[in-house]
């Protein structure tokens, strides 16, 4: 088990005065059988009023507004997360051919995670990847997915700035390059086109040095840890994480924030405001192992279930008990 403290800061700076700013953020880590969100706190400067709800995919969404005139807006999300277990490599031996004979059932249950989307259209070049992966894998659904993820990792170059946040896989396919968002979308494109449900996951990747138990408190990571990968529905197993950007298994260093059909469903921050000023945006994510007051790791002491204290925003609307009940 790994326990982390995360601080995700988003700064908007406007060229001139703006007002009536309305924002919606998906920054609260998921809370489920594989990961516990022990605490979450959202603060804004200037102060704001807001509400929270869970969207159709189970993600927490916080909405807030700042009515008065302002030139800067800072959104700070602080959370403590406990990663329970690393994914075990899927051992399911269901063959693709057997799987295909049941595919109509999947379409009924997982339509949203099988249909093409704006970011992930079904495109002819994906066929070639499907064929290559089918040839070199062991013929199982799990093997096919892993092989596809490896193929994408090998064939595409990670180039910062190669694509933009609204790019569909059409761009990364023609460039042969992209960022983690594109890698995740590519994997989704291939598995969905092959008839296997896949979903987009946004989150953080904790740098290796921070994750080790030897990391000291001052090893605070100032880097941009935001990351994206995909989860694929493996028969008899459930949603399994695959990280085609990293090429490594999804493990305790992957912290999940939100999931959806594609990036469009999980954008961490979006908003509208009144005013003719342009805006510039900077994002800073800091991750460190959570430690106790005397500076010691206390991971081994965690035995009780998670009790997420309500955030500033949620206190008004959503008592903690209600949060628990809505998980069903």
């Amino acid at each position: 088990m790994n326990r982390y403290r995360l601080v995700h800061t988003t700064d908007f700076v406007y060229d001139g005065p703006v007002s009536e700013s309305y924002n919606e953020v998906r920054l609260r880590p998921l809370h489920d059988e594989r990961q516990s969100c022990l605490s979450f706190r959202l603060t804004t400067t200037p102060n704001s009023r807001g509400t929270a709800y869970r969207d159709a995919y189970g993600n927490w969404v916080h909405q807030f507004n700042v009515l008065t005139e302002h030139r800067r807006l800072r959104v700070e999300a602080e959370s403590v997360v406990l990663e329970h277990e690393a994914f075990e490599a899927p051992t399911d031996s269901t063959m693709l051919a057997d799987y295909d004979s049941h595919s109509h059932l999947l379409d009924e249950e997982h339509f949203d995670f099988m249909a093409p989307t704006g970011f992930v259209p079904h495109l002819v070049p994906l066929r070639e990847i499907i064929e290559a992966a089918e040839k070199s894998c062991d013929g199982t659904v799990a093997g096919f997915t892993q092989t596809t993820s490896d193929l994408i990792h090998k064939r595409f170059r990670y180039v910062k700035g190669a694509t933009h946040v609204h790019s569909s896989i059409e761009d990364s396919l023609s460039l042969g390059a992209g960022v983690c968002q594109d890698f995740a979308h590519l994997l989704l494109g291939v598995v969905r086109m092959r008839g296997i449900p896949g979903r987009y996951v946004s989150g953080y990747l904790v740098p290796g040095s921070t994750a080790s138990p030897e990391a000291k408190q001052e090893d605070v990571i100032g880097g941009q840890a935001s990351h994206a990968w995909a989860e694929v529905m493996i028969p008899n197993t459930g949603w399994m994480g695959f990280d085609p950007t990293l090429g490594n298994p999804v493990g305790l260093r992957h912290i999940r924030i939100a999931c959806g059909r594609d990036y469009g469903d999980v954008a961490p921050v979006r908003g509208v405001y009144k005013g003719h000023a342009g805006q510039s945006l900077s994002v800073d994510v800091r991750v460190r192992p959570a430690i106790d007051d005397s500076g010691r790791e206390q991971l081994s002491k965690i035995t009780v279930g998670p009790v997420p204290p309500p955030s500033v925003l949620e206190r008004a609307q959503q008592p903690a008990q209600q949060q628990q009940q809505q998980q069903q």
Partner: protein
Amino acid sequence: MVNPGLFEGYETGSFYDEMFSSPGQPRAQYTKLFQKLASMAPSQFEERRKLADLSFLIQGITFTVYSDGRGTERLFPFDLIPRILPHSEWEHIDRGLSQRVMALNLFLQDIYGKQTILKDKKIPRWLVYSCPNFRREVIGVEVARGIYTHICGIDLVRDSKSGDFYVLEDNVRTPSGISYVLENRLVMTRTLPEAFQACEVLPVHHYPAELARILRSLSSRGEADAQIVLLTPGIHNSAYFEHSFLAQQMGIELVEGRDLIVDGGIVYMKTIRGLQRVDVIYRRVDDEYLDSLTFRPDSVLGVPGLMGAYRAGTVALANAVGNGIADDKAIYAYVPEFIRYYLGEEPILKTVETFLCANPKDLEYVLEHLPQLVVKAVGESGGYGMLMGPTADRAKLMDFADRLRANPRNYIAQPVVGLSRVPSYDPSTGSVAGRHVDLRPYCLYDGEKVTIVPGGLTRVALQPNSLIVNSSQGGGSKDTWVLRGED
């Protein structure tokens, strides 16, 4: 035998005629009107007609046709010869519509809630989830008193062959036209008072009061303090007249998006005495434009943050967000199934046979029989995005065939329903001729029962032989009379 006067030489043609069962022989419900009109000299009728037109003009009862480029507003053409329904026939329609509205409301509750109908496989999930008007944003939202379909304007047509009524569209988003029903009646009683009095017509004037009652019941703060507003897109909208008319009739504020503001999940109206909390919004703005934070970021018609308030239950919207799924013309084919599934009843009203182009077999059939079919885009209404196979030229047929192949989910096809006709006055010839009509009753649902003002809007295709009755496509309207008691 009465002298046919105005109806001299009138031909019923091969169509079901609402007024005449055979040439010169009026149906029972039309006997009194026929006597009154036939005894009028044509010049006298023409004079009354001009009076009626003038009355509409003076009152500013207008609408907008976007496509004709002739500026914003025009008079809604009104035909003085009413459409009359006997009481027994109306009772049948009333029961059929009530049943349909209840089933549609239950479907919407279910599809944005537990989705039992999907689990029971009465309708394929892909058909629902692939609908562009299915709003994932409101899945799990609890709407005030469980009502989605506060107002439905269900379009009916009488099939010219069988004489039976068929449902054509449900219009459960933002149906319009009720203001014309109310104004047509007012003008009718003034223009042809003797005919109106002779016929014992059921009243329609209680519609605004009934709608206001339902809107008030949605308030989360209780009815006494309820602040209700009508949200209009603005003066350039085709139905702006109706928005202002209804707001005035109900005694509620008429607002645009910029008159409202959301703070901390509560909606307020900006007034000269400061912000006033708003409880219920009768919105005439489409889902996609309601809230730029949740839907289209470029919308300037809505209220940013509105969906947050809606979700939190501090404000109610009528109609509910996401109703477009029930308006989808592919979903339409399943409404009889909804009636059986949710109510355990057999549908009272008939629906038109519908081919879903999303089904490869249906698509193949449609492409082969295109010249005999009507093709409709699933998300459109008001006669936009339509192909009338029998009257389309080759180029238009080819164009639609391409569109169907490129995006089959977006289209359905139906056989052409021959609409019944009502005698209508043609001012250019000064004579009466048969024109095709449909019927749009307005159904109000208060969570327990459906109230329908007797009759509704009879829309008439004023061009000879035209089947397009939509006001946005140049149609006109008639007053619709439902007779009291025994026929």
